[in-house]
């Protein structure tokens, strides 16, 4: 029985590690400026945990295999050095790992969430609601209109609750269901929620941030490749949570300008 268990453990460890190592399921190519840091951390962690995983499972399997030796007269043996080398190994090895990951990882984190956005960043307002995302550009006057929740009327397309009757800055706001941005340009999103908690997740951008009702949360990034990517909601928000998505369209600057003109004409 012990030998069977040991073989199964080693087989599981081998199969799992192989699948991880071959990147059979892996994040999509990174299209952001900050993503390289995340991918590096992920890769380093994968290697470190992979080594520990294999070592621990093999040690377990080996000692169980040896422990299944049912010969008479065998005496039990104490681990050489007792608990001390194990404690030392754990404290030192894991300790070094922790320091390294924290030191490097906190820089990666700070770049995304603590560093301020580029001063020339293109500001797009984002609203999350049950069950769609809507995006707002400030329009030609470069100013966003005020938001009035009591004026929200989804059926008329007034998702944000703008008051164009009384608020002239709101009249040229461009509201869109897709996040359309130019490539290689710093973008600043301000996230707010209309109803309950939601989250903004773009795996390709290596970016994720919760929307919190009552807060306006800034999020900045720069996309480095054109294309169409999906934005999905990762904070359970109700029955339509799994349908809640929008498309991120990263365009060349010319295409973006053209898109902006077309949108402005429709508002």
């Amino acid at each position, binding site marked *: 029985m012990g030998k069977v268990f040991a073989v199964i453990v080693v087989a599981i460890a081998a199969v799992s590690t192989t699948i991880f190592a071959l990147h059979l399921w892996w994040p999509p190519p990174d299209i952001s400026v900050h993503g390289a840091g995340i991918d590096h951390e992920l890769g380093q962690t994968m290697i470190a945990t992979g080594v520990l995983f294999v070592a621990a499972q093999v040690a377990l399997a080996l000692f169980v295999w040896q422990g299944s030796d049912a010969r008479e007269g065998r005496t039990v043996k104490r681990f050489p050095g007792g608990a001390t080398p194990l404690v030392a190994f754990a404290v030192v090895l894991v300790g070094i790992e922790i320091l390294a990951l924290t030191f490097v990882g906190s820089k990666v984190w700070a770049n995304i969430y603590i560093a301020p956005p580029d001063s020339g960043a293109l500001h797009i307002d984002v609203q999350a609601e049950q069950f769609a995302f809507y995006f707002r550009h400030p329009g030609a006057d470069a100013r966003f209109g005020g938001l009035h929740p009591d004026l929200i009327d989804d059926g008329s397309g007034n998702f944000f609750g703008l008051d164009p*009757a009384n608020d002239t800055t709101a009249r040229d706001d461009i509201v869109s269901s897709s996040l359309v941005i130019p490539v290689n340009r710093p973008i600043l999103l301000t996230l707010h929620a209309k109803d309950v908690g939601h989250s903004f997740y773009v795996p390709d951008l290596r970016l994720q941030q919760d929307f919190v009702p009552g807060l306006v949360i800034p999020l900045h990034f720069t996309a480095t490749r054109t294309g169409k990517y999906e934005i999905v909601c990762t904070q359970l928000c109700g029955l339509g949570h799994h349908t809640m998505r929008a498309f991120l369209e990263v365009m060349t600057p010319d295409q973006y300008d053209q898109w902006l003109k077309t949108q402005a004409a429709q508002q």
Partner: protein
Amino acid sequence: MHTRHLWSLALAAVAAAAARAPSSGAGAAGTITGKVTFTGTPPRMRPIDMAKEPSCATQHQTPVMTETVVTGPENAVGNVVVYISAGDAAAGTPTEPARYDQKGCQYIPHVAVIQVSQPLDIYNDDQTSHNIHPLALVNPEWNKSQPPGAPPIHASYAKPEFIAVKCNVHPWMHGYFAVLTTSHHAVTGSDGGFTLPGLAPGKYTVTAWHEKFGTQSQEVTVAATGAVTANFVFKAQPY
């Protein structure tokens, strides 16, 4: 002399009887027709971006527009529910179900008129799940998910009410159920015209309801035969 009195009496009796009689049947041949128009500038309708739901977006060659204010030639207003709100005798409950479709991620028709207790069948004709949520305030409120291929939802409402309908999954989907007591109702098309036939002579209040412009009513007297005209003019504002 005696005969003329008899004739007057008879006429009065018939008139009295007709006033009490239901509008259908003998003596109910009057009609109210009219047109609903607007003055001023109506709000612009916007194209609906169905990017989140490609299975619906691909069903439309050009993007559909929001339907809050549907206008037509000569300032006509569509989707106005015109109905008899007073003076009408009690109507029976129709057994024929009304139909409401979710197709191309739109509600068809935008405004569905049903009578109290009339069955309403709601169909999902799309490849995607809808969750229909009629926001009733007087009647019980409910919402139901309808995956593609699910059987129609059977509903009915016991009290008259104009009920806004939304889809929990697709925020741009909006429509209305107009639950009425009367069997005399019409919804204007984009030409703004309506006809209410089969009315007995008498005094009626005709009401026109529009989801954005509000409600207007008029008193109309219907003769024994022929049409009476009642037009409605709503004031429109750009925002």
